[in-house]
């Protein structure tokens, strides 16, 4: 891959921005909706981390799969999770993608390759390898992405998965979204070594630390990893540097974040920065973007209405989907 350049062209950049704008709008709406009491849910805001999944969504195909985590709605929306099924699931309704059984931590949508959302730190990685193995067996060039956090990098499952992927030359892409915190613990306080990307060398795979808030840098790194995987050259570990603006979960007292650090991160908010740049570079006009953004707001409102007017599941649902056929237990 070394000689090939992976550069996002203007249409790609515009597409990435549009995804990011959707993600940002959806997060803002989600926090409002919870505050208003319309939907009660555990919510892990990804505000600030939009660029990473927007790039992934742009580069990946529908048949590429992703295994993501509780803080993963951005990853899923980036990959095309439909808003109605999303919101209905968040609201616990029977029209949700998982009939209300999974909720925000277990969103699943196979038509867009969104195969697993896990609430167990690190567990996305071993499962992603299985999807990658299947691609190998199918002789398909589809790739398998897993996302996880900086904190998750220290758990055994991630280590086992990276080693296996390297040994089997699987088309797995390990996307660590390093937002510098795991719940309330600072990155430096839990991580042996300077960074996560460095660990890749120990597994014999490329590891890249990239500014995950920079759309072009993120595009180059991710597109290269995907190309490598599609070409049968094996896995890559990407450590995408970013920051989450609103604490670990909604309602979290985030006083453990140094205020200067938080202020600086918000000041450098990647989405408006990217927006300004697109306009300055004439990749899009203010009007075009504003129209898109207003359209997105409308779509979210529609999805929310759909969700809130949908029926709740009934208690007999406890008996279904335990096994394919109901078994009197």
């Amino acid at each position, binding site marked *: 891959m070394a000689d090939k350049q992976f550069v996002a062209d203007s249409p790609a950049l515009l597409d990435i921005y549009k995804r990011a704008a959707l993600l940002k709008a959806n997060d803002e709406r989600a926090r409002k909706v919870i505050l208003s009491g319309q939907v009660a849910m555990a919510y892990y805001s990804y505000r600030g981390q939009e660029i990473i999944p927007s790039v992934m969504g742009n580069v990946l195909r529908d048949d590429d799969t992703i295994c993501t985590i509780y803080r993963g709605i951005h990853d899923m929306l980036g990959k095309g999770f439909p808003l109605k099924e999303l919101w209905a699931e968040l609201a616990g309704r029977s029209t949700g993608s998982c009939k209300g*059984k999974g909720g925000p931590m277990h969103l699943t949508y196979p038509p867009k390759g969104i195969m697993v959302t896990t609430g*167990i730190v690190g567990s996305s990685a071993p499962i992603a390898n299985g999807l990658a193995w299947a691609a190998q067996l199918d002789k398909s060039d589809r790739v398998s992405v897993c996302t996880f956090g900086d904190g998750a990098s220290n758990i055994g499952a991630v280590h086992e998965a990276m080693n296996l992927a390297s040994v089997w030359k699987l088309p797995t892409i390990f996307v660590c979204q390093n937002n510098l915190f*795991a719940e*309330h613990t*600072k990155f430096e306080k839990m991580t042996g070594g300077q960074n996560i990307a460095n660990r890749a060398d120990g597994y014999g795979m490329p590891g890249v630390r990239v500014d995950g808030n920079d759309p072009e840098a993120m595009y180059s790194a991710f597109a290269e990893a995907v190309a490598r995987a599609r070409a049968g050259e094996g896995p890559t570990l990407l450590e995408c540097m970013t920051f989450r603006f609103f604490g670990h979960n909604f309602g979290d007292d985030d006083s453990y974040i140094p205020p200067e650090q938080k202020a600086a991160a918000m000041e450098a908010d990647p989405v408006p920065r990217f927006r300004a740049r697109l306009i300055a570079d004439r990749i899009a006009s203010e009007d075009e973007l504003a129209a898109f953004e207003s359209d997105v707001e409308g779509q979210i409102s529609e999805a929310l209405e759909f969700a809130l007017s949908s029926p709740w599941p009934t208690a007999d649902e406890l008996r279904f989907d335990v096994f394919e056929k109901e078994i009197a237990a």
Partner: protein
Amino acid sequence: MSAAQKVAKPTVTILAAISKAYRDALAEDSKVITLGEDIGDAEGGGIVKITKGLSASFGEERVRSTPIAEQAIMGAAIGASLAGYKPIAEIMLMNFTTVAMDMIVNHAAKLRFMSGGQTSVPIVIRTMTGLGFGSGGQHCDYLEAWFAHTAGIKVCAPSTPEDAYGLLRAAIEDPDPVIFIENLPTYFTPMSFELPDNSHRVPLGKAAVQREGSDVTLVSYARMAVEARMAAAKAAEQGISVEVIDLRTIAPWDRETVLASAQKTGRVLIAHEAVKQHGVGAEIAAVINEELFGQLKKPVKRLGGAFCAVPYSKPLESAFAPDAASILAAIVQLAS
């Protein structure tokens, strides 16, 4: 309880009782140490702030935040205990014990036996679970039957502040590993008037008869014991006298107390949130039937969680586990 208190509202929660037990244990015994994710003050003192202030008081070496690595956490606790310490390891949620199951079951529970008594593992594993917050299948589960089935580890699950305090102190002092299960929705309800004195202990293996009764024996623990007490009060209004037994320690459980009550009433109901099939209720029912064959008036009845993962959606989550209403219905049926 003074007359003034009788009309006043309780103010003490299980959460406060556990915090005090922690603090008293650390203050009284320098061998007590603790570790877990986010438990230090720099990390906010734990996700429900149970450990808040402890690292400030006792130092970051004794109250230690960890990386997210439950095997490493359990291993560190086990190793330190082999060197004479009494570590309290927090595994944030009960589901996460599954990533440390080898450490807990193959090591903590077995090292004393396998070493022929040369080593012991006096650790406490504090963990938590609980329904009602839409946590879903991976953040709410009830695995106490697994641990009860494991020789070499004790299992506690309190339902009052006094018991939480007294059991946790006893668990820390116990020479063997104890898994101490806390229940999220019971943390916050004020239930008592005063925090227990630091000499208060509840012996492991001893149930509490929280209400005496003559018609039906109701056995439960943890949050179900709270629901059981409510159901028993309602049953009393209908003229049914229910004896409420809170096991407090699930393993080893208090056979004497349960069997004596069952013999007296001849009617037994067991309720827990864990999946009914192969739950703790099965063992209790089996023993009661063995010991009191022919002496029961009705078959032992078990209520438990539905046979599925804990669901997210509110109506499903509410339907998952027994509650005061379904317990009351079962009492009425048994007493009929």
